[in-house]
């Protein structure tokens, strides 16, 4: 199986899972076909502790949702995962590129796309 390289950034309390205090940035080797879930498992990060998650600058997950776990990562992808303490108010992400799976999930929700937490 081929190996891919992922640049992972963990912010806030999640940084402790990769040896940091409030920020940890690492290049991680994974097998081709690995998902976000595989990446989080590598560092034993509980899924319910992630909030905003970006893959190559695309907003792919939100606090309280699980839209990104099945996303397949590609070689040299950049993944940033934020803690539940982080905030990203709607007005500052209104119109931002989002992943197809997150867009679909938000469209299905009755409480809309504007909330801080779900």
């Amino acid at each position, binding site marked *: 199986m081929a190996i891919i390289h992922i640049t992972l950034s963990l912010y806030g309390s999640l940084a402790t899972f990769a040896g940091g205090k409030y920020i940890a940035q690492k290049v991680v080797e994974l097998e081709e076909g690995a998902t976000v879930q595989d990446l989080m498992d590598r560092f034993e990060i509980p899924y319910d502790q992630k909030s905003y998650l970006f893959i190559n600058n695309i907003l792919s997950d939100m606090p309280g949702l699980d839209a990104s776990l099945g996303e397949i990562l590609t070689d040299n992808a950049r993944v940033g995962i934020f803690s539940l303490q982080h905030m990203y108010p709607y007005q500052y*992400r209104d119109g931002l590129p989002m992943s197809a799976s997150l867009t679909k999930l938000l469209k299905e929700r009755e409480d809309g796309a504007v909330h801080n937490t779900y």
Partner: protein
Amino acid sequence: MAKQVLRINMSDLKATYEEMPEKWARWGGRGLTSTIVIDEVDPTCHPLGPSNKLVIAPGWVSGSPAAPSSGRTSFGAKSPLTGGIKEANSGGLSSQKIAKLGLGAIIIEGMPKDGKWYEIFIDKDGVKFEDAAALMGKGMYEIDTLMWEKYPNKPAVIGIGPVGERKLSNAGISVNDPENEPGRYAGRGGLGAVMGARGIKVMIVDDKGGPGVEIANKELFTTGRKKLTAAIGEHALTKKDGGLWLFGTNVLMNIVNEAGGLPTRNFSAGQFEGAAKISGETVKENIEKRGGVGAYHHACHPGCIMQCSSIYPHEDGTAFVSVIEYETAFSLGANCGIDDIEYIAQATRECNDIGLDTIEAGNTIAIMMDGGQLEFGDTEGALKLFDEIREGTALGRVLGQGVEATAKAFGVYRVPTVKGQSMPAYEPRAIKGIGVTYATTVMGADHTAGYTIAPEIAGVGGKVDPLDNTDKGALSLTFQAATAFIDSTGYCLFIAFPILDIPDGWAGMAESVAGVTGLDITGDDVLAIGKEILKKERLFNEAAGFTAADDRLPEFMRNEALPPHNVKWDMEDEVLDSVFAWVHED
């Protein structure tokens, strides 16, 4: 006892008190400053001339007992930076002290005939004018210290630095915080120049022995404030150990950078490789490591329970600066290609001292860099520019006018402004919704003009789709109206986070306002009241000469694709024009 309006006429150095007239009685904060400016200021006047006025107003609930995070002071006038109406609000000590003196507003008008500068002292016994010659040229750190040495009751100190004395368009108004530091600014729009044009270097407000704030319906007020306090205390962002408490507003640096929306090197990119080094997470690590007076949850005004401010220490633990906001770290840092947090702390202190808005100041330095006057990333060269501004050299006076004037002086095409005011820390090509607000708000490009309100609360649920660009105009109007209301309350705008997600908090905000004022207001009235404020402000700007052509983002954003998303600003003009079309339909 009805609230009073204190009118200070600098032409004859007279102060008069009048009962709040009925036409103004229902307003507070931004609603009141804008109403008074509209009633009393000729929209076509020169902002620095005798016809402009500086209006200061605490919010509806400021000074009331135990209203959480309610220490915002609104400052209003015709802006020398934008040429339109402006409200800028600040934390610090002033709002609660003005309110506790029984004052609903302070109107400062006229200009000293003798050309002198004045120190104004306000307490329960009235107003005193004193020659301020000995204070001229001094920065706000020294001014605040001198005023607390002179006046014993730890008063509010509202002042301007040398930039305001020179009446430059990027002059802010400083308000001291509980530690008597000058880091709280009504920064945007050059209102410090309006204060300077009235001949006032500093105003002191001592509320000792004042009548306090009358509560019309104590039961309703208590019910409302408790609901709001509970919502703030419960929400993930605003509770103790939440995002704002832990990292301050600079918690946004890494997240906006990951999103590709962090304006970098004069808005030429949306991602900065050095973002982590200047983020709230790094600031917190340094504060914990250095100890001393450093603090990462610090209240900018008494009674704030969100405490998003911080005190950044030197390596030896002594005080360096308060506070490195996200907007400050973006403008002085990423937008200048600078990843040195110690430089950002120093430059923030310079801004606080000489009286500059940090957003406009950093963006101005970025223009100099883009114009080839110094390299991106050059901290030494940037600090020399602050020296030029402090000393009032010819170059310093150009820089003190802000981004547009500096861009013209140095032939720079990439000018990230709307209505003369430069953009805050969210790139509108990547984050298109905020671009609609930047373009259409009467205030000029302003990130605080449109805070989110839940569509179901706003009564537009089902009618707009936040994920569809064609609805961005309706959303922006809703957000701008809600923000105009919150700006009138005296509450910090950050209560918007919990009241968005917790309906009881939304109701509590409105009930606490109704309880203090006696106005018949519920959560259902918020948007209508906010729109009333927006309409007045919009009509003022139209009378000042603004048209739909002013509701546009700069040309370069339509022409230049922004990495990493490689997107241009492609919002249709019809969407922008829809935001305020109703003003002439009603």
